[in-house]
């Protein structure tokens, strides 16, 4: 193990330069933020992931955000274990009817102010699962959504771009960068 640790010390870091905030996400978010939220949240956001019926593709890419290349924690994002610790709910999947109640309760358990990010194509409107007897058809049908990050699944960079826009917004920079 010592050898591995030593090698890691002398090798250049794998972590890549941060991407710019997604313009589309900045636009979408600008309206969702207010001053009080900024004061309360400071510079970091805690994320609670909720799988509401995804195929687990989005979860894989969310996991990837924690690897050395993306290192999401350097931006102040942290995935947390309880909705009670969370500022952001990151919801995936077309919301199956069997998960509707659990999603609602998770959202209710998250203190205000909070944001809901719908991740992936099927989280927007059910995607290719829309119309099924077992599917509600989009996260916004169950809880209000502040930001949607498209993709099937969105790549870690795309998720990061959306989240950085969210953080900039929370810090009051979204408006500044727009004007």
């Amino acid at each position: 193990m010592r050898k591995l640790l030593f090698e890691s010390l002398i090798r250049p870091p794998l972590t890549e330069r941060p991407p710019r905030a997604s313009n589309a996400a900045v636009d979408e978010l600008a309206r969702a933020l207010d001053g009080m939220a900024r004061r309360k949240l400071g510079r970091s956001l805690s994320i609670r992931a909720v799988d509401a019926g995804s195929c687990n593709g989005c979860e894989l890419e969310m996991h990837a955000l924690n690897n050395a290349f993306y290192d999401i924690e350097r931006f102040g994002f942290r995935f947390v274990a309880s909705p009670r610790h969370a500022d952001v709910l990151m919801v995936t999947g077309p919301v199956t009817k069997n998960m509707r109640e659990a999603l609602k309760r998770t959202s209710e358990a998250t203190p205000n102010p909070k944001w809901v990010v719908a991740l992936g194509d099927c989280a927007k409107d059910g995607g290719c699962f829309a119309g099924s007897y077992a599917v509600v058809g989009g996260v916004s049908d169950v809880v209000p959504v502040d930001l949607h990050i498209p993709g099937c699944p969105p790549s870690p960079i795309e998720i990061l771009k959306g989240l950085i826009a969210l953080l900039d917004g929370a810090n009051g920079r979204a408006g500044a960068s727009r004007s």
Partner: protein
Amino acid sequence: MPAFADLIEADRQVEHHAPWRRAVVAPKAWNLAVEQLAAGRWSLLGLWGEPDKVHMALLDEAQTIGVISMDCRGGRYPSVGQHHPPALRLERAAADLFGLAPQGLPDSRRWLDHGQWGVSHPLAARPGGPAAASSYRFLTAEGDGLHQIPVGPVHAGIIEPGHFRFTAGGETVVRLEERLGYVHKGIEGLMQGASINQAAKLAGRTSGDSTVAYSLAFAQAAEAALGVAPPPRAIWLRALMAELERLANHLGDIGAICNDAAFAIMHAHCGVLRERVLRAADAAFGHRLMRDRILPGGTASELNEAGADAIRSLVAEIRRRFPHLVELYDNTASLQDRTVATGRLKGELARQYAAGGYVGRASGRDFDARRDLAYAPYDQLTFDVPVLQEGDVNARVWIRVREVEQSLSLVEQILGRLPAGPTLVEVAAPEGPREGMAVVEGFRGDILAWLRIGEDGLTERCHLRDPSWFQWPLLEAAIEGNIVADFPLCNKSFNCSYSGHDL
């Protein structure tokens, strides 16, 4: 000792079912098959419904696959699960979806239907009114000082939803019962009447981590049904994608298992290797998970020289880094202390449930669809199938380690022998109804796809059986007698799919 063929001769064989045979049988032959299953001579590969029909896929001792079907008069058929428990949840699922009533089924609780759909038996000829939402009766455990721990459906990590009900005596798990179905999307319902390409898209979204394996299983089944031979280059490219998918998942799992034993350095390093696989896949095929890259008739992507180079340097990188990680795993006593002898799955259970993948192979079940069914191009490739007997978390880690090594070799062999030529042929509509089937080795185990294409060329019925159907119940057995704190470790070493199971 009967073979599957004996069962078929006696009854009516269905025309246009490929590549294996299907026969409509009378209850007597059905029960004879159930006897073979219960006696441990045959393995159950799947059980699924249709309106007023039930089908069962079997693997006999000569590794021959066959399907037997029964017309269910009044929606009834003799339960398989009463004699052969691996069929229990499959029968409960078919009951929820089609209203089929297995006679003698010892567990009549609903499985996928949580009373939320607004309809009951949604895939039956005549769906029923909404099922009442009722509380689920968990199985009991009795004894002094036992307490229950409910977990889920929303879990603490970035994982799929499901409910686990532990009954524990102190720290020791006395009973675990799973309650699944939360991510049931109705994929098989959506496939009915869908075009082949739309159904292929849905198949590729059954379990995101196995999107290549599912697309491959569906494509092979569709091609078998329609009598289409994909071009040789496509066959080899598909295997290349399948091995990359296996590499990515196994590397991710090895790290994640160690992480659940609080050994984060393995997780960090394996995470880097996994990311490199995904990036190479992106460079080679244009998508990190290689989603929608396999179609009935061939592949949607071509591999150019730059892509092949990306994969070659990936293999070199893993070959350089991975042995150090394996050595680290092997030499860290505190880590071994957590994984050795933890979550032991008995060999008899693995065989009874025909558990596929690392779950089966770590408990002595020597089956790999790539070798035993020898679908192309694996019939022309050289590889070993690692098998261990211990059945603990450690064995499941080692199976993955060995399979990473085998997959690296397979990737090299494939790149070295990739034939030239086109990658896609047109798939024409059939002249009449056609049925096809495939069993494909995903990273988690064998995936079964069965489908019937109607005269109009649309999907009439498609069934996809995830390996997790036969692994989830075994997790309940493996955790018994372990401490609650070791559950994440055991669970991760199984890494069953929720979405693939719930469908």
